[in-house]
């Protein structure tokens, strides 16, 4: 599931990266909140684990959705059970306390004391990073939730040092001292743990230790990754969202303690905020939680709070003359402090600047900045607007930070003027006009022309922007449709000042399938910047084409229904190898009988000859070996039959070798017995 979401996320980020370093981030909006309800509220009101419950409840709390009454009963039961039981694991206790912090369940009186002693013991005995994390953070949660409990963290400095011992020189942390594998995710956990130690310590921790942690943090920032559009993130084996969220959580809690005084590079913080906003709405609960939690940490922290500039609409319509609106807010959508927004420059598609240093006006009612006056030379087309935010002096105290320059792609649309539209039939070589008609492309015309295959058809028109410049449309097609529904499409190209298409029927007879008759003419002109794109039926033309020669291709008989290609295809009839002709069953059976006949004849012959087994030895030893010998031969024959019926060669050969060895011994014994008997006979 992680892999699927990661793939989806990477695809969306790749799309962002392709946008050529100009993109708009949007802060968390109501669509996020409604999606959160789908993702985090379980259908049956209960969560699978306390970890899931904590993630869901925390996200809902940050987004301001109050669902506590629905969800608290089942989850609280679970929490109380875990906190009361003396054998719960550290991880379960930690998540139970976290959920308790949000839901404020009613736990018993003795609970804090038991929990505290358990967590303190956990902190003292811990060897793994995760054990430190759960126990220390658990103690911090107990301190917040149950006031008046006596919390002393025995030897805070020793714990600090032992957690610190798990760090590495490149800024990442290991999960345990035995395992050499390190990760950035673990670094985030470590920062939270150390922040917890600092807050619980009875006395000040040595500043040199804190300093080493700070240098480690700056080292960690060296390994930050970035995309072309200015977003920064940390990558790791848990995925970029989880890793970056863990680091941000750690840094926020570390900076929250008074004595640390952490300073982080501002542009990277904005980049991290843009990374999380660029994720969109994640489908996975864990990614959603990480995104919301990280943004909540960025919203309210001690180092710098990022501000996001967003535009509700990036299209300026020159006909409607509405102002361009810009919003500045924090990542979660709350109000920004007093500031001013300036349009530093507006670059058109050629790269030259059309607007320079325009300050945007502020509308206090809707808390938006807007630009309502555009210069006279502002034409339709695609622009890149570069915005800059200047913070007022009062805002600088809180430590707000913004991007140096925000580049936004803007499209300007307007009404395009169409002039001098005309259609004419020309005589080929001379170029003289046989008939010419002026067109009004806004109305469907009833132009009626006729031409034969020696003539040409010419269509021309001029498109101008509101400022009077030549406009080259993205799409300009002429379609000729025959009575039999056969269609042909031609592109109208723009040469210099006007757009023109000349159809030379002499060269086109083969393409038109030699079909004479009435053709309908249809013109389509369209562009993203054109508000009055059109599709007009100009009229029809009678074409007189020569007869179709033998070898010319036939027109498609029925126009293929465009949706028929999605229907079932014709059935494939497979051709199998024709099986060999086998003889009739009876014939084969007759011959089977015939084969057996010689064997019967052989047996009869044997009896006729007076074959006997008189010299079969009678004494016990000799008899057994003789019996075994004959038995062995019979077994070999049986093996042949089995081989024929079902065994394969390898098992048969293995069995045969065994039987052969056996037969060798027994046969030798039998023969020696026979020889001894005959010798006895001879001597006697």
């Amino acid at each position, binding site marked *: 599931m992680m892999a699927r979401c990661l793939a989806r996320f990477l695809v969306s980020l790749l799309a962002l990266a392709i946008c050529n370093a100009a993109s708009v981030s949007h802060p968390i909006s109501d669509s996020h909140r409604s999606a959160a309800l789908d993702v985090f509220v379980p259908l049956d009101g209960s969560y699978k684990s306390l970890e899931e419950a904590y993630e869901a409840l925390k996200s809902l709390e940050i987004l301001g959705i109050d669902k506590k009454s629905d969800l608290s009963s089942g989850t609280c039961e679970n929490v109380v059970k875990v906190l009361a039981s003396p054998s719960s694991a550290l991880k379960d206790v930690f998540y139970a306390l976290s959920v308790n912090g949000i839901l404020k369940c009613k736990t018993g009186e003795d609970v804090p004391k038991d929990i505290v002693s358990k967590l303190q013991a956990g902190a003292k005995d811990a060897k793994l990073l995760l054990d430190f994390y759960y126990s220390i953070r658990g103690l911090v949660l107990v301190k917040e939730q149950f006031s008046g409990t006596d919390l002393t963290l025995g030897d805070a400095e020793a714990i600090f040092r032992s957690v610190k011992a798990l760090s590495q020189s490149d800024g990442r942390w290991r999960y345990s001292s035995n395992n050499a594998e390190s990760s950035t995710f673990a670094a985030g956990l470590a920062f939270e743990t150390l922040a917890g130690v600092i807050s619980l310590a009875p006395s000040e921790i040595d500043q040199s230790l804190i300093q080493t942690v700070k240098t480690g943090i700056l080292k960690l920032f060296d390994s930050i990754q970035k995309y072309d559009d200015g977003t920064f993130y940390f990558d790791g084996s848990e995925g970029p969202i989880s890793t970056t969220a863990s680091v941000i959580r750690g840094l926020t809690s570390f900076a929250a303690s008074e004595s640390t005084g952490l300073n982080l590079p501002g542009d990277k913080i904005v980049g991290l905020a843009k990374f999380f906003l660029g994720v969109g709405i994640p489908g996975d609960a864990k990614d959603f939680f990480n995104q919301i939690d990280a943004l909540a940490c960025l919203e309210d922290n001690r180092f710098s709070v990022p501000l996001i500039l967003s535009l509700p609409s990036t299209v300026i319509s020159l006909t409607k003359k509405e102002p361009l609106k810009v919003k500045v807010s924090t990542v979660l959508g709350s109000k920004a402090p007093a500031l001013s927004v300036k349009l530093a420059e507006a670059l058109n598609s050629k790269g030259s600047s059309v607007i320079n240093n325009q300050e945007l006006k502020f509308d206090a009612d809707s808390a938006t900045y807007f630009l309502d006056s555009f210069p006279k030379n502002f034409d339709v087309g695609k622009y890149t607007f570069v915005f800059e935010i200047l913070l007022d002096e009062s805002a600088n105290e809180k430590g707000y930070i913004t991007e140096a320059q925000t580049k936004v792609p803007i499209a300007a649309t307007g009404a395009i003027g169409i002039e001098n539209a005309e259609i004419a039939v020309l005589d080929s070589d001379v170029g003289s006009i046989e008939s010419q008609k002026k067109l009004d492309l806004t109305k469907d015309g009833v132009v009626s022309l006729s031409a034969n295959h020696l003539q040409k058809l010419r269509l021309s028109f001029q498109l101008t922007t509101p400022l009077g410049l030549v406009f080259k449309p993205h799409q300009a097609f002429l379609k000729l449709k025959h009575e039999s529904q056969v269609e042909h499409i031609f592109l109208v190209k723009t040469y210099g000042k006007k757009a023109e298409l000349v159809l030379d029927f002499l060269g086109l007879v083969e393409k038109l399938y030699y079909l004479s008759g009435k053709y309908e003419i249809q013109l389509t002109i369209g562009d993203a910047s054109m508000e009055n794109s059109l599709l007009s039926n100009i009229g029809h033309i009678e074409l007189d084409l020569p007869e179709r020669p033998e070898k010319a291709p036939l027109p498609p008989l029925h126009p293929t229904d465009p949706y028929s290609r999605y229907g079932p295809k014709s059935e494939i009839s497979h051709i199998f190898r024709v099986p060999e002709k086998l*003889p009739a069953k009876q014939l084969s059976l007759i011959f089977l009988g015939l*084969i057996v*006949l010689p064997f019967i004849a052989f047996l009869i012959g*044997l009896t006729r000859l007076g*074959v006997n087994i008189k010299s079969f030895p009678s004494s016990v030893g000799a008899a057994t070996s003789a019996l075994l010998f004959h038995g062995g031969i019979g077994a070999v024959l049986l093996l042949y039959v089995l081989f024929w019926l079902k065994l394969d060669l390898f098992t048969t050969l293995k069995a045969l070798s065994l039987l052969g060895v056996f037969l060798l011994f027994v046969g030798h014994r039998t*023969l020696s017995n026979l020889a001894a008997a005959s010798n006895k006979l001879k001597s006697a």
Partner: protein
Amino acid sequence: MVKSTSKDAQDLFRSLHSAYSATPTNLKIIDMYVVFAVFTALIQVAYMALVGSFPFNSFLSGVLSCVGTAVLAVCLRIQVNKENKEFKCKTIVTNLGGIVAMFVIAV
């Protein structure tokens, strides 16, 4: 002329038959086995001629096994025949039992 040839044939046949009955029983057993094997092979060839050699492997295995066992039996007969002194090849075993054992193993 015809009569004489038929009478000659009959005489020839009778003399052959009488000579043959003089051979020891052992050899007669072997002869019968050879005849049995050859007949089986012939029947298989006739079947193949009738029906066509589709599973050619089966035909080959059937015929050749029959022919092979016939050939081995003939070898045995040669070696066992007491009157066959000129064929006293230096076999590994010269006694009857050894020869029989070799035949069995070959089969």
